[in-house]
């Protein structure tokens, strides 16, 4: 716990323990911290993490992040409510078993649409999977934890089975794969090590299993199931099928037609992904897919810890700062402010108490690189922070991480404990400057707290309302002391930057040096996490690394930077992506989410989604952001429901431009970007909506689904239709009764013949 623990810390503990904050507990906590009840409740109600009514036994959180939204999260939410028969003004089912709510982003964009039940993430969950998901969850409650056998570590001539342990792989089932592997290896008494690794970034193939030998030979499989994992170990490690039991082979042959055998080859993806890795430049993520993220030894073996060494032994503070200045490192959180200027300003301050804060409040829907860094390279992040602590003689280092990232919080806490044990940081640290506390603080769910001054308010236990600037946090920040606040990715790049400056500066050019990681999602063949040099073109990212848009649709636009960023059309494909170029074309780096949109995505709906997000997340201080975003959402809703007017576009531009020029914080200033950029590049589409047509077939009120002659009468659509709008007529062409149809698109998605098409509304 921080030296100056706040009411928020305590409220999170109570929320986790009791599931809600009662008036009684709020009053007692308020008393403890010398606050009034209105202050305590006022502070708590700012954050979405807290509940103020008694909870159900299990909480279902439906992710409405960008990627999930595009794949119909709204519909999933409604289906959950319907299946659990939750009344309109309630959020708990009548039995009190489940509560359902929406959550800004779970950071599992490649699993979209994703749903979290208690601590487990499920995905993709489509409307027809909702019932199954609930059942699976309930079944898992009764499963007993099995005792895993302890494996002997093999040291010579070793072979290692590595299983990715990031959140996306875990939610795809990597834990059960790992358990199966451990049990299998123990049963077979094989001389191999089994370990977890950090994120490879190819999350759409999760869970991943890699077998690597000492001699550098490697083999990688994707979409591994426990059965397949056992088979891989048998066939690949023992080299014969002899080890596989007769029964297993028979089951495979009889029931799956030998599919498992085929998967052994089909799911092997190392040759394909070798190319993709070669196209990237992994710098902050370098080597994390090769080692256990929580093993300090392997971090040191891979060259970690050198930055701290240099700080301590060979370099003066000025020299280290000089290295950072010359590298031209800019903050990776979105704004792109030069890191060294912040640090220098804080170093020069005469104040004897200074702080270092790592901003891990990654709230952008559609971005998850911070979470991946915290999970996969926790030691690098901590080393970066340690360098800053040493430079500043800081009194404390604080990591502010969203409470929605439980694994990241667990990993980083574990890593801090390890570093304390190894006497790198903490009270017994070898370097005197590092004998300070490293504290993890959970952020309670407010997008605006990603703004650094709002984050400070939140850390001091208040409502996250941004402060006026100047003074900047580097002059007067946490409890009015000079404070360095940087993004996770910025800190993660510090160690390698100091130990190998050349490796950093050779990427990018001019003011935009180094690499940047992006979360790639949307209508793309290989979504996931990538890291490329600044200045890489979007074309390279989307077509070469991401494998282009899936067959059957065409690329339309790309959305960069979430609610602060903009939509770019194909004319921007060849622009080198860096901080300055993006700002020049009306987008923003944001924290680096890239969502690819194809012809089936509606740009107006996209703009509406982001504006509604900003309206919901506005802190409520400036009128233009609080009300302007609402007014824009209303206009956009009108347009997407077919009652837009041509003059609405002028209103949008007017409100958007005022947001840009007079909002007092970064969230407000950039919140109009999605609207303004789509108005620039896709004004046609707005006008088509005003004419009563949604060319992408997304906006329900402007769309009709019909079934063409390709229908084979299989009745799948009739069975899955949630409103019974399709009559059960086996063998005949199905017909949609438009009066009952709610345009959920389930039939279109499941039709094996692709016979469901979007027809346009007639205006008369």
């Amino acid at each position, binding site marked *: 716990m921080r030296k100056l623990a706040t009411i928020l810390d305590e409220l999170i503990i109570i929320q986790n323990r009791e599931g809600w904050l009662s008036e009684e507990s709020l009053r007692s906590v308020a008393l403890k911290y010398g606050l009034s009840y209105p202050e305590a409740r006022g502070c708590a109600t700012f954050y979405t993490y807290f509940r103020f009514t008694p909870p159900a036994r299990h909480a279902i959180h439906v992710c409405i992040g960008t990627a999930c939204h595009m794949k119909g999260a709204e519909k999933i939410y409604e289906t959950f409510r319907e299946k659990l028969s939750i009344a309109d003004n309630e959020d708990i089912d009548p039995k009190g078993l489940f509560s359902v709510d929406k959550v800004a982003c779970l950071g599992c964009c490649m699993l979209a649409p994703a749903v979290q039940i208690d601590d487990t993430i499920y995905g993709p969950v489509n409307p027809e999977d909702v019932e199954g998901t609930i059942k699976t969850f309930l079944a898992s409650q009764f499963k007993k934890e099995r005792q895993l056998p302890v494996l002997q570590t093999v040291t010579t001539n070793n072979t290692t089975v590595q299983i990715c342990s990031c959140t996306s792989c875990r939610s795809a089932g990597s834990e059960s794969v790992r358990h199966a592997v451990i049990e299998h290896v123990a049963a077979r008494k094989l001389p191999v090590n089994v370990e977890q690794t950090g994120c490879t970034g190819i999350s759409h193939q999760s869970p991943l299993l890699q077998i690597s030998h000492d001699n550098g030979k490697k083999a990688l499989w994707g979409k591994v199931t426990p059965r397949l994992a056992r088979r891989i170990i048998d066939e690949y490690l023992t080299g014969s099928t002899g080890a596989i039991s007769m029964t297993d082979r028979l089951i495979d042959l009889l029931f799956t037609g030998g599919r498992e055998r085929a998967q052994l080859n089909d799911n092997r993806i190392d040759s394909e992904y070798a190319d993709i890795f070669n196209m990237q430049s992994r710098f902050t993520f370098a080597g994390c897919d090769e080692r256990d993220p929580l093993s300090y030894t392997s971090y040191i073996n891979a060259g970690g810890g050198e930055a701290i060494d240099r700080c301590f032994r060979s370099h003066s503070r000025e020299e280290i700062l000089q290295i950072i200045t010359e590298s031209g490192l800019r903050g990776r959180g979105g704004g792109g402010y030069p890191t060294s200027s912040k640090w220098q300003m804080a170093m020069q301050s005469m104040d004897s108490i200074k702080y270092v804060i790592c901003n891990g409040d990654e709230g952008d829907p559609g971005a998850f690189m911070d979470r991946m860094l915290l999970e996969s390279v926790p030691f690098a992040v901590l080393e970066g922070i340690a360098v800053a602590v040493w430079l500043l003689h800081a009194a404390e280092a604080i990591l502010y991480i969203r409470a929605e990232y439980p694994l990241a919080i667990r990993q980083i806490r574990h890593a801090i404990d390890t570093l304390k044990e190894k006497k790198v940081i903490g009270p017994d640290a070898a370097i005197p400057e590092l004998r300070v506390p490293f504290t993890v603080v959970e952020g309670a769910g407010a997008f605006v707290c990603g703004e650094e001054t709002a984050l400070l308010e939140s850390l001091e236990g208040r409502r996250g309302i941004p402060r006026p600037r100047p003074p900047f946090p580097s002059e007067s920040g946490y409890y009015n002391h000079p404070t360095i606040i940087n993004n996770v990715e910025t800190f993660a790049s510090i160690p390698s930057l100091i130990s190998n400056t050349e490796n950093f500066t050779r990427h990018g050019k001019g003011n935009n040096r180094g690499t940047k990681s992006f979360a790639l999602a949307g209508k793309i063949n290989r979504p996931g996490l990538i890291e490329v040099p600044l200045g890489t073109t979007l074309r390279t990212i989307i077509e070469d690394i991401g494998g282009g848009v899936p067959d059957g649709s065409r690329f339309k636009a790309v959305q960069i930077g979430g609610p602060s960023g903009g939509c770019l059309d194909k004319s921007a494909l060849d622009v080198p992506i860096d901080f300055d170029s993006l700002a020049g074309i009306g987008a923003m780096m944001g924290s680096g989410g890239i969502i690819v949109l194809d012809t089936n995505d509606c740009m107006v709906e996209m703009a509406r989604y982001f504006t509604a997000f900003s309206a919901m*997340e506005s802190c409520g201080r400036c009128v233009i952001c609080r009300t302007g975003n609402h007014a824009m959402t209303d206009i956009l809703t009108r347009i997407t429901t077919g009652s837009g007017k041509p003059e609405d576009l002028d209103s949008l531009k007017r409100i958007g431009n005022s947001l840009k020029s007079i909002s007092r914080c970064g969230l407000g200033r950039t919140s109009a970007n999605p609207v303004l950029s789509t108005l620039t590049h896709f004004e046609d589409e707005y006008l088509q909506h005003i004419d009563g047509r949604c060319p992408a077939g997304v906006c329900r009120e402007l769309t009709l689904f019909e079934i063409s002659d390709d229908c084979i009468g299989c009745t799948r659509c009739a069975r899955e239709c949630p409103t019974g709008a399709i009559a059960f007529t086996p063998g005949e062409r199905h017909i949609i009764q438009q009066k009952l149809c709610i345009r959920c698109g389930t039939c279109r998605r499941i039709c094996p013949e692709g016979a469901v098409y979007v027809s346009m509304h007639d205006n008369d």
Partner: protein
Amino acid sequence: MSACTITIDGKALAAGKSETVLEVCNRYDIYIPSLCRGMGDHRASCLLCLVEDTKSGKLLPACETQVSHGMSLNTNTHAVKDMRTQSLTMLLAEHAGDCTAPCALVCPAHLETDKMVRLVEDQKYEEAAQLLYSAIPLPRASNMFCPGPCEKSCRRAEEEDGIPVSIRPVKDFLAANYPPVLKNNTADNANKKKALIIGGGPAGIAAVWYAACNGYAVTLADSQGYAGMLKAGIDEKPVIAAEIDNLVKAADASLITRDIATDDPLTQDFDILINTGLISAQMAVARAFYHGREEAAKVIAHAKGVTPHLRQKSSPSRLGKCSVPEIETLLQNRLKRNAHKTESVAGGKLCLDCTCWKSETCLLKKAAEDHKIKTATIPRLNHKRDLELVICGALEYEPAKCMRCGLCINTAQKLSEPYPLSFENRGIDTRLLFDYNLPAPVKTAHRIAQVCPIGALRCKDYGEKIDE
């Protein structure tokens, strides 16, 4: 305090280091619209006091921006005005409440209907009647023509039964029981200044009453006598005649039964001349009353050398159409405020008291009028309006009107005995949160309500006297 120099609108001004731009501007009488008036160490919220930094072109809120040496600002560029208008529009968009009640807003005679009904509810009939005569000197006559826009626009008519507050019956009741009386009519007619009114139509009669009320000895000139045309169209002539008689007697007016031109030598005998002959005879009676009064007011003000002061009807903020549950909420609010008043005098429905209690002194209303915001340009938000009145001790709070500036919270904290107050929720759902176990003492409540720039907070016991 080390001084520095800043430039505002091209003028170099001396300023203290820790001052805000707004403080400096106030000191030098440079007009900057501001709702929070720069009080407290708050964070800019309304974005009305924007000024432009000439170097960067950035717009900064004057209340929050600290001066620094060499700063150069403009306070009235096009961009500044544009953005101030935009902020105001947004403030009004989320501000759900009527500045002036619809009944008063629509009255063509500009009768302060809302005030009259309230006086009647308080059983101050005499006062109510005189208020009525000041706008409608012949209430019973006008009732015969009046289509009752006040009743049509009444919010209670939006209820399922469609019955409004009975305003016209109230007027009849007052006219029948309380004749017009000239207040402070002490001076002898001979000592009074003399006014000649040309034209005996409704406009002329309104002018007669207005001039008489302002202490003039009144003479009216018209070949057809008083209200000739008005009488012609009505069957119940005796009622009208009696009403006119009452008024003329009360005003102590004399009559010249011939038409007089403005250049007639006779006009030399009078101090002022009010010509209502040009006001169209086609005009509806109520409108004619207003125009006559307006004309009289102009002439009298000119004679006194002041600017005419007539209550301007304006309501930049309006509640708009309400749903039935919303009306129910408003009625509950009204009952919460005065639980003992359950019905109006004429046996009709209870008035909702739509007019904002701070309508006269509201800073937001004033700013909206100054910036000429048109009600039509204010977007109506598709957001559930929180119309319920919150009462905590002596404090009454209307969330739908609150502009979330936080002045009340800051003020409450700085009192010698701080009172706990905070915002809850965020974004557009932000609202004040009270501790119901700890209602504010009346003195504290008064102080807190006083700082509210608009009518969102009021202190029960002080009511309307609050801003005196």
